[in-house]
């Protein structure tokens, strides 16, 4: 039967309490034989130890256990390490699909890695369950302990039961006749060392640093908040991760802004360190590396749409600001941030050809083709004209030997030109690609001679919106506070009690016994009261 236990001091303790929360008298028979009592939870019964009936209780107790918690941490640790053996899927180069890449690069082990799903380990269901379990464990283990601990520390008395004092790690007895003034001296010294001193019936409880006991629970709360933030990321709208490619001179709509914001790239700058212009100290390093990047910068202009238009219509744009986006310096607006992420240098933009006669190299006019929007016909006057029959921005030969284009980006432009000249009224056809000219209908008289190109740089900007950031940051902050609170301060208590003609001194701290012993030594110095003995060390030395 589960009933509360009333101690002889009058305090009612919850069922399962080991020693009285108030005066410290041992309540569990089995504990009376032990030399020292376990002070970890102030004698209070960890709830889960006492109620173990239903399945709910069993699950609760499972997650409340420190042992389980440590196992969860260790398993997570090992699992995380496995994910670093081979690069994760998001880090492999885009040469081939993952299903082929791992086997191709790493052979048998690579294939095994892929088949087990380890290439995407951190989003796998079992890893998420691990993290979730840690989250559940954090909540339950904290609830289970913090409530009883708080109670116990609140109701603790100044005058503690003799059995309690005798079983503290630091305990000592002094014969106490002329100790009246010593008492005052001791109280002064304790106060000087910032102890909170309570007195009752001539007995003293000096306590400091109680707040550090809450440290672990605070840091657990921090971790829970952090995990909640991570979880919220999956809620639609909370997190955006897109790439925006903009050419110099181009204005494009920024994705995920509902068509409200536009970005124009004015210029992309790539600077490298120059041995002559920059600090000469860098000379050796630059030689060794060949080239060291100094700056990646996209000078952009941010626009907001005025009025209401639908996509496809040309919007009226209002300039918001000019901004140089550099690495470590994103452009921020509303909840969005645009980062300088990647770039493409010298993308082909325009190509110029001259219609010329092969024999004499006489030129009859030049044609400048805008690779993004080429004109179909070019009239060069005097009966000379050029027509683009076909245009392949990103050309390759398909399996039938036919020219096709892979995409609309002019990575490898090719043209089928029809050259109309007075002496060849039917025109001549020439297939022209970079460093390649094919004349499909036999030898031509004319050719399109390559004259020059115009290039533009392209900025690759990452568009990011993350509404969960503040929650995650809050979680991190609370965690750090909790860790510092728990690690850098100790909860110290010193009991001084008069028993008959003796003065009993006992001390306890949750960590750093060395420091507490020194402090007690300093307090009792010159007072005639003996320093308490470290009962653990005594046992060790025997």
């Amino acid at each position, binding site marked *: 039967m589960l009933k509360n236990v009333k101690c002889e001091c009058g305090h009612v303790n919850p069922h399962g309490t080991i020693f009285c929360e108030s005066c410290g008298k041992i309540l569990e028979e089995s504990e009376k034989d032990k030399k020292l009592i376990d002070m970890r939870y102030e004698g209070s019964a960890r709830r889960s130890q006492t109620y173990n009936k239903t399945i709910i209780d069993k699950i609760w107790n499972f997650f409340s256990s*420190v042992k389980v*918690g*440590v196992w969860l*941490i*260790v398993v*997570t*640790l090992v699992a*995380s*390490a496995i*994910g*670093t053996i081979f*690069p*994760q899927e*998001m*880090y492999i180069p885009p040469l081939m699909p993952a299903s082929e890449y791992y086997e191709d*690069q*790493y052979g048998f082990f690579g294939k095994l890695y892929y088949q087990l799903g380890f290439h995407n380990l*951190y989003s796998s269901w079992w890893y998420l369950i691990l993290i979730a379990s840690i989250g559940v464990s954090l909540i339950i283990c904290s609830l289970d302990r913090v409530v009883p601990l708080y109670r116990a520390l609140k109701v603790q008395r100044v005058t503690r039961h003799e059995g309690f004092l005798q079983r503290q790690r630091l305990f000592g007895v002094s014969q106490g006749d002329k100790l009246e003034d010593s008492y005052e001296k001791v109280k002064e010294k304790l106060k000087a060392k910032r102890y909170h001193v309570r007195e009752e019936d001539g007995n003293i409880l000096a306590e400091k640093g109680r707040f550090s006991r809450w440290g672990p629970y605070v840091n657990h709360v921090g971790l829970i908040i952090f995990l909640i933030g991570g979880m919220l990321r999956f809620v639609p709208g909370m997190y955006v*991760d897109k790439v925006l490619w903009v050419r110099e001179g181009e204005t494009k709509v920024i994705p995920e802004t509902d068509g409200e914001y536009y970005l124009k790239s004015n210029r992309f700058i790539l600077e490298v*360190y120059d041995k002559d212009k*920059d*600090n000469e*100290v*860098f000379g*050796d*390093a*630059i030689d*060794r*590396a060949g080239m*060291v*990047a*100094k*700056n*990646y910068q996209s000078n952009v202009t941010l626009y907001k749409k005025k009025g209401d238009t639908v996509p496809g219509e040309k919007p009226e744009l209002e300039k918001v600001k000019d901004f140089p986006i*550099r*690495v*470590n310096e*994103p452009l921020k607006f509303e909840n969005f*941030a645009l*980062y*300088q*992420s990647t770039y493409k240098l010298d993308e082909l933009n325009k190509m110029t050809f001259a219609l010329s006669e092969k024999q004499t190299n006489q030129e009859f006019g030049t044609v400048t083709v805008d690779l993004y929007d080429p004109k179909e016909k070019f009239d060069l006057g005097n009966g000379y004209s050029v027509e683009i029959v076909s245009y392949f921005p990103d050309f390759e030969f398909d399996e039938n030997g036919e020219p096709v284009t892979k995409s609309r980006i002019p990575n490898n432009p090719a043209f089928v030109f029809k050259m109309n000249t007075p002496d060849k009224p039917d025109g001549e056809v020439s297939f022209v690609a970079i460093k390649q000219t094919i004349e499909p209908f036999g030898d031509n008289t004319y050719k399109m001679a390559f004259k020059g190109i115009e290039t533009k740089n392209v900025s690759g900007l*990452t568009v*990011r919106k993350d509404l969960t*950031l503040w929650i*995650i940051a809050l979680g*991190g902050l609370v*965690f*750090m506070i909790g*860790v*510092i609170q728990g*690690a*850098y301060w100790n909860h110290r208590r010193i009991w001084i009690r008069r028993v008959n003609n003796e003065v009993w001194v006992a001390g306890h701290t949750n*960590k*750093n*016994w*060395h420091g507490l012993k020194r402090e007690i030594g300093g307090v009792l110095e010159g007072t005639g009261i003996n320093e308490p003995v470290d009962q*653990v*060390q005594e046992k*060790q030395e025997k």
Partner: protein
Amino acid sequence: MVSLSQNLLHAAFFLYLAATVLFAGAIKDKRAKSKEAGPNKWGKLAILITLIGFASQLGYFITRWIAGGHAPVSNMFEFTTFFGMSLVGAFIVIYFIYQTPFLGVFTMPVALLLIAFASMFPNDISPLIPALQSEWLYIHVTTAAIGQAVLAVSFAAGVLYLVKDIDQTKPSKRTFWLEAVMYGLVVTLGFIIISSVFSAMDYKAEFNWIDKGDQQVKVEYNMPALTGPHKGELLTEGKFDPLVEMPAIINAKKLNTVIWSFIVGSILYALIRLILRKRIGAAIQPLVKKISLDLVDEIGYRSVLIGFPIFTLGALIFAMIWAQIAWTRFWGWDPKEVWALITFLFYAAFLHLRLSKGWHGEKSAWLAVIGFAIIMFNLVAVNLILAGLHSYAG
């Protein structure tokens, strides 16, 4: 300014070496004298020399910062020397709390090895690439290094505990693993020795080889090639021809260095064993007879307790803030990030296990050793072997 900086570093190195010897003298001396409060004069001199050495290394740090215009923590060499310096700093603080010359005998050699190891890497002052041009460079890297250094003190305390505590009269799993730790330190020394020797000889051998993208590239070896690169072709005349050829995905040059280190390290270890006629662990044991195991355990625990928040702050919190600013996302499961998380989880487990009395003492000491191994893995393997955003050419 640059040469002044280097000289200050060299001076610090020799001062630390002297301090190690003096600390050893301090604990040996205790055997002769009876229980005296506080350190003896050897100990006092040792800590004084350590302080001067630390000041000298601080000077190296400051002068290098001035010369380069940025905090010198931006490559393998700079980071590892800073880590070594922080370790000395952390030791100094612990020394003034606990008055422990014996800790010095174990911590200072680790710091020495770190600095020497660091010097094997290119030490030109290099300009910062755009991603590193941020205040967060100093904030994140220095805090992480200091956190790791404090945690490393627990390693020294752990080894100290094990040396004293493990029964060396008969071989066992414990004697084996303690000796493995010693062997690891000797192999590190082996790496330092062989790299320095070949560097002094200015050994250079160039190869053409085919990489995994089927491109032909050049590589320069600084040690005779035992393992050669994939389809390698020796260009420099008269230099050592590889014994074995490696497949393209293996970095043959790094593997070569590792193999050389193990060969030299093993020979060195064999010599030491021959001279000592017993395990290194057994040989050092008499030196530490008088130390209090309880105190060493407490120092080990406290270092973790002090270092864990600093490490978390530097290696995780500040790292996440900076990653968000520079790489658009605060966490990307990059190997370096993952191994920082692993280090964090490991020491969290350590602190939780300490709640149980059964885990104090020897078990705690072994955990501290494993923790340091994880930190070293993060510094060496993740930077040099695993590919990722923190990769260095090495």
